[in-house]
């Protein structure tokens, strides 16, 4: 595990590189794309576990913080969807340079999955796009999280009154400036015209309207696609889970197995 900073001098990104286990390295890398806001905090340790498992399975893995997130440079209020998509492409190139791999897959969670799907239009030669509980529409996602915030704030100290209870410019501890809201509202996976990865998989932690939508959407994609439900992880809309760490071992296992299977199918063999 090698922590480092990469990217431009003005917008340094914090990353952790997990080289493949030396006994069976693959010519394949995986970039992990974190979710947004408090969901990032919930899943950080879980992503580390996923990275370790993938490295043990022979993949070179890079997990990183977007600009203005985590340990990367920038104030939280400077976050930008366009920048985060660009950051994913930067991370893909960084991993190719560091590991010397020719094939790279993206694994994204929640809004990180949405960012990964958009980034896949810009990154060259991606293998597998794994979307874990992906957010289909950014505006709907914000509405959903605002409801979570509202329910959560009801249980906390502070002045009463609707205005105090429902801050519009922040979301469960993270700034939400108008410009960022506007960007979220433009994000709809239905608008993606070019799916450039070789394979896309949606992993859902529960069945519902959104997962049904995804199943239908996958049928229309011009690339090979898979849908799987892995019950257990998630609980994204519960106010009581806002600060609970999410380890999601079943989902980690499913992702590791899935990438291994796809690698074999695509001719990526253990050397």
């Amino acid at each position, binding site marked *: 595990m090698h922590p480092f*900073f990469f990217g431009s001098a003005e917008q340094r990104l914090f990353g952790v590189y997990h080289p493949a286990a030396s006994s069976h390295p693959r010519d394949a890398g995986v970039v992990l794309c974190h979710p947004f806001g408090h969901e990032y905090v919930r899943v950080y340790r879980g992503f580390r576990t996923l990275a370790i498992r993938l490295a043990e399975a022979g993949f070179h893995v890079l997990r990183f913080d977007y600009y203005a997130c985590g*340990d990367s440079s920038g104030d939280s209020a400077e976050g930008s969807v366009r920048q985060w998509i660009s950051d994913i492409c930067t991370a893909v190139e960084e991993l190719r340079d560091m590991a010397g791999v020719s094939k790279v897959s993206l694994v994204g969670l929640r809004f990180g999955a949405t960012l990964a799907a958009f980034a896949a239009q810009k990154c060259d030669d991606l293998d597998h796009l794994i979307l874990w509980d992906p957010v289909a529409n950014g505006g709907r996602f914000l509405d959903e999280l605002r409801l979570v915030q509202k329910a959560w704030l009801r249980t*906390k*100290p502070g*002045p009463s009154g609707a205005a105090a209870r429902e801050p519009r410019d922040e979301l469960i*501890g993270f700034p939400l400036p108008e410009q960022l809201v506007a960007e979220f509202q433009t994000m709809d996976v239905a608008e993606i015209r070019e799916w450039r990865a070789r394979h896309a998989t949606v992993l859902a932690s529960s069945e519902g309207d959104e997962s049904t939508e995804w199943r239908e959407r996958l049928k229309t994609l011009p690339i090979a696609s898979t849908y799987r439900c892995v019950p257990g992880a998630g609980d994204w809309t519960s106010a009581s889970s806002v*600060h609970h760490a999410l380890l999601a071992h079943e989902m980690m296992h499913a992702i590791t197995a899935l990438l291994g299977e796809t690698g074999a199918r695509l001719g990526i063999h253990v050397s």
Partner: protein
Amino acid sequence: MGVVCEPATESGYRARPAVLLLNAGLIHRVGPSRLYVRLARALAAQGFLTMRFDLSGRGDSDARPGVQSTAMDSLADVQAAMDLLEQSKNVSRFIVAGVCSGAVAAAEAARVDRRIAGAVLISAYAYPTVQSRIRHYLRRLGKPKRWWNTLAGRNELGRALRRALFVRGGVANEGEMTDDTTGARSRQAAAVMFREMIARGVCLFVIHPGGDAYNYRRQFEDAFSDVNFEDKLAVEYVPQADHTFTRLLNQQRLQDAIVGWARSRFQIRVNETPDPAPESPPTPFGLRAAAESSR
């Protein structure tokens, strides 16, 4: 694994204590809502070298081998971090700070390690007093439906009120703590710990959010009325804040309070020009840490 936030210039920072930020529960080194990142950068901009890092088994750090208690592991981790900065950055004094269990780890380290000059304890060490109990019950009794059952002692509130009326003096029952998720000591043991810290000259900054466990400004002083803090104690009460200071205005208030306390306690002149944000590239720090600038 940790991230060091360095002041732009080396001038003066070795004369000031370096700041260590300790995990809040299981949250990794960026802190709740990225609070530790903004705090580290704000402190570095004022000339304090700051390191946020993951204690064993949290964030990016492996668990320590063996079967030591979490408290012993945390103490060893804090001391290892101080050793690292002593050797690599030539600093010899430290401030330890943390939220919730991070505050407990900070206090336990400040109790035993002579290198620690200050401790910032956030959302921990909230002990009930007579006044806090009365306020708590009055707040709950504001709901008329509860009156009858309460007065009749038929619900938990009524039973607790009866118990509270039998508390003597200004201090709650020994050993009782209202916010015991942090792994902190009993009140009596905490009083002993604070006396030891004060005797060694450690400056304490205790910050409490609102809520049931802590509900008026002087609760900490009242709970520890048997401890002579001399002039080394400062207390901040933020009644609108939740346990991890989630709202942005509360994060800002916390940041301002800590930076202000550090400046005043560690003799930074008001008119001293803060270090500007540096442009230097990041450099590897230690075996398992990365370094960043103050922004």
